[in-house]
């Protein structure tokens, strides 16, 4: 059933501090709204719990991209379009640019933010696999201070995150250590654009003398949340890509991936398809490294 928009309040506090103050004063009462591309859908469908929305879309404090201390810092209010236009991100984090480019439509990318994408915590969201593979950290802020955590620890379950009701996601940080890594990302949707992923895989790895090192895999739509596939990474760590070992490396990696993911059946796809194609994508990545 639909919501009655007249029953909702929307305020745009002048500063980040003002927003945090209000969130702290009445925890759980207000919901931050950034681009609104998730929130407005939820509102239309009558799924929005809170009646009071605090806009953070206009906060310059949350919209930035900068390199500092060998880290790339991205404000949570950065839009997909900002990401697609950033020379810094293009240079250091091509997988993030890729994933931003196939998130929704152009209109969506102009409004939607990376913060909203992460905080909404859909298992099918497009930027998390890249951020997981890049080993990002996130900074959360509240009126009482800030904390930084590994992004992989941010997702606690289906649509559950580590955010407290008085907190906002402030920014995302990625170490600039991928100059020597090979990088891979692929999204499989129900059509060739504007589709929610049936499955997506992002991967980075170093190849040293035909052996894999520092393998990091992030996936979407394979479990109840965006995941880092650490069991598969462990199997691949130090594994050989030499022609006499490659098939065995692929076999072990596929088995490990199947073991640590639990895809579901829904109207967009079947568990069997997701499981098998995840293996195919991983194999495609490994073969591209060997080739």
């Amino acid at each position: 059933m639909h919501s009655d928009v007249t029953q909702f309040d929307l305020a745009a506090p002048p500063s980040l501090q003002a927003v945090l103050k209000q969130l702290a004063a009445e925890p759980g009462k207000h919901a931050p709204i950034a681009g609104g591309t998730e929130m407005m859908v939820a509102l239309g469908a009558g799924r929005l719990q809170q009646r009071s929305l605090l806009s953070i879309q206009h906060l310059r404090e949350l919209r930035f991209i900068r390199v500092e201390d060998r880290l790339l810092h991205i404000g949570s209010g950065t839009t997909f379009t900002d990401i697609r236009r950033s020379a810094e991100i293009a240079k250091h984090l091509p997988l993030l640019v890729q994933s931003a480019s196939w998130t929704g439509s152009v209109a969506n990318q102009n409004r939607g933010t990376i913060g909203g994408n992460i905080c909404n915590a859909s298992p099918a969201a497009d930027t998390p696999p890249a951020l997981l593979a890049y080993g990002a950290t996130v900074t959360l802020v509240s009126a009482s201070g800030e904390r930084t955590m590994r992004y992989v620890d941010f997702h606690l379950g289906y649509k559950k995150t580590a955010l407290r009701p008085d907190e906002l996601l402030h920014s995302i940080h990625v170490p600039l250590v991928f100059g020597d890594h090979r990088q891979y990302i692929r999204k499989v949707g129900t059509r060739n654009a504007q589709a929610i992923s049936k499955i997506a895989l992002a991967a980075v790895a170093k190849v040293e003398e035909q052996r894999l090192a520092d393998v990091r895999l992030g996936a979407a739509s394979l479990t109840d949340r965006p995941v880092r596939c650490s069991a598969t990474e462990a199997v691949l760590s130090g594994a050989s890509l030499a022609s006499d070992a490659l098939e065995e490396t692929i076999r072990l990696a596929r088995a490990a991936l199947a073991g640590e993911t639990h895809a579901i059946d829904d109207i967009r796809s079947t568990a069997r398809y997701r499981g098998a194609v995840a293996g195919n994508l991983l194999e495609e990545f490994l073969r591209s490294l060997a080739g």
Partner: protein
Amino acid sequence: MMQAAEKAPKPVKQLDHRYEGISKVTGKIKYAGEFSEPFAKSDLLYAYLVQSTIPSGDIVSIDRAAADNSAGVVTILTPFNAPKLSQAPPQPPARRNLSLLQDTSVSYNGQPIAVVVARSLDEAKSAAALLKVKYAPKPAKIGLKNRLAEARWPKDPGKEPAGNHRGDAQAGFSKATVIIENTYITPIQHHNPMEPHGTIAWWDGPKLNVYDSTQYITGVRQSLAKTLNIPVDFVHVVDPVVGGGFGSKGSMWSHVPLCAMAARITGKPVKLILEREQMFGPVGGRPSTVNKIKLGASADGKLLAMQQDVVMNASVMEDFVEHAEGPTKNLYMSSANSVSAKIVEANLGVSTFMRAPGEAPGTAVLEIAMDELAEKLNMDPVQLRLVNYAETDPSHDRPWTSKNLKDCYQQAADRFGWSKRNATPRSMSDGNAWIGYGMATATYPANRSAAMAIVRLLPGGRMFVGSGTQDLGTGTYTIMAQQAAAGLGIDPTLVEVKLGDSTLPKAPVSGGSQSSASVLPAIQDATSQLKLKLADLAIADAASPLHGLKTLDIDAKDGKLFNRNNPTQSDTLTDLIARNGNKPVEATGSAEPAESKDAMSSQSWGAVFAEVAVDKDTHMVKVRRIVATYDIGTLLNQKTGHNQLMGGIVWGISFALHEEAHIDSVYGRVVNESLAEYHVPVNADIGTIDVSTLNIPDLKFNPIGSRGIGEIGITGTAAAVANAIYNATGKRIREYPITPDKIMLA
């Protein structure tokens, strides 16, 4: 050639652009829901349709206290207070079995059960959410594939009989050297034109006015009069442009009379626009079809017998038959055919016509079976179709008015490069993708009904043409302007066109690809009458250079009347009308199918070739190219005609790969009732589409030679894509849509 005997019509000057194009892109022309006159805009009330949330049962009570007290609410119509109406039995397309709050029964999930009327749409919607409906549920009939044993004959199959036999199919199969026998399935699909259904209604004393998004203003007018028990003359329906209809707007659905009822009760103009999710149930859809097809052929490919038994879902409210068996009766010359179409009742909304009803799913399934037969015979698929080419109509044993399908196969195959195809699956690849080629035949019947038109010569040599037809975005305005202009030999840019108003002379439903074939002959007749009147005017006018000539000696060209025997003797239309005191001269015309129409069959044809790339890892399909050639009679306008064919092809690709309504197995609701989940292709899914037409007039069908173009594009395309996927992957998917999951699991 057959056509040689007929007098070729003079070529009609085409408009380069859509007549209403500029007013559309500048937002000037109004769609039904956009009008805010002649009533006072501040008077306008907004109605919101409340739908049932169970598939079967009765409404016990509706607690409306909270909703009544909600801000802005003016009235709420429910089965407990709605005015009683006389309901007549359905008579498609105009009249259907509607849900007009006349009783408390619920026949499907999503059925209209109340209407909330408020000062604003938001207020109406939020009050609707406050209604507390108590149901007494009954067991629901849901599902098709698991209930095939319940199939029964339809009560009223429509134009075609539900069962049909020609020759001895069993004997044919027993003689056959090669037999194909499989089950092919098409899903439920829902119409989703860009403009959803919508109505604005207001009363002027006893008279009802509606702006309604419809393919059939006359049908809405008659159905409203019948439903509300008022004289037809008291109903006025207006709809200058339709943002697509695809068949669902060929019938009047429940929201239209509900809107009129709300307007009568409130004494105010009321607007009721369906939301996107309300398009999935209350306004029709294409039923799912399960098709058992058996083909038997001799070793040289000659079809000895064809059999197709179709079972489809139909609403418990009304039988509607999707004649998917049609192509098996008339597409190829087989020694024998046997077909049947049966239905399984379900607690779903009423099914209805959707672009190329019958032929869209019919060709989608039969043309895969033909591909399988060709493979088993080790024969080229085009060759198989040529071997079984039907020179006459096998279903009625009579000639075609015109058929040039062989040329379509030839031309499209050449442009496509069909000769490069390797029949062995998985033999062509490009990078990480298997490449496949496939083809299929396209076909759709040509229809025509009685229609009328009015034309006027206006001051300045301009013209007016009007007919109570509709423009669904198909180009009706454009071709009406062209036809009227051709009648007096003036430039089509000088013509003003009016349609979509029930006060204009009557025209048929814009469905069955018949608008141009019906309306243009009426305009042709009207302009002939007008020319005679103008000639007589000139002859009687002492100041005219044509004064005193005989009517039959006068013709029109380049904005002038002239003496056929001495073309330099002429009178411009501008001068003539000026001397008439600038009083417009008017004529009406009408046309209807020839009485001899039952002596021949009229059908359009095409050949569709597809190239797909199927990713080896993900099995995602990209349709790289579609090349198609059609035999549709005269191509009336290059731009709007090709646009229709290409749009049909895009939908055919959608049929092949994307579209499917998922029905919840417990609640019977369409699960994916939004365009986020009910997928149609996006630009990235469509490669190049290369269409051409033979442009051979079919003058035995009508004096314009055009057979209609609105539906044939969707036919054949889905099977061409399916066959290309087989050629690419070696996997034969017999259930649409062909998703990556199905390809992988096959």
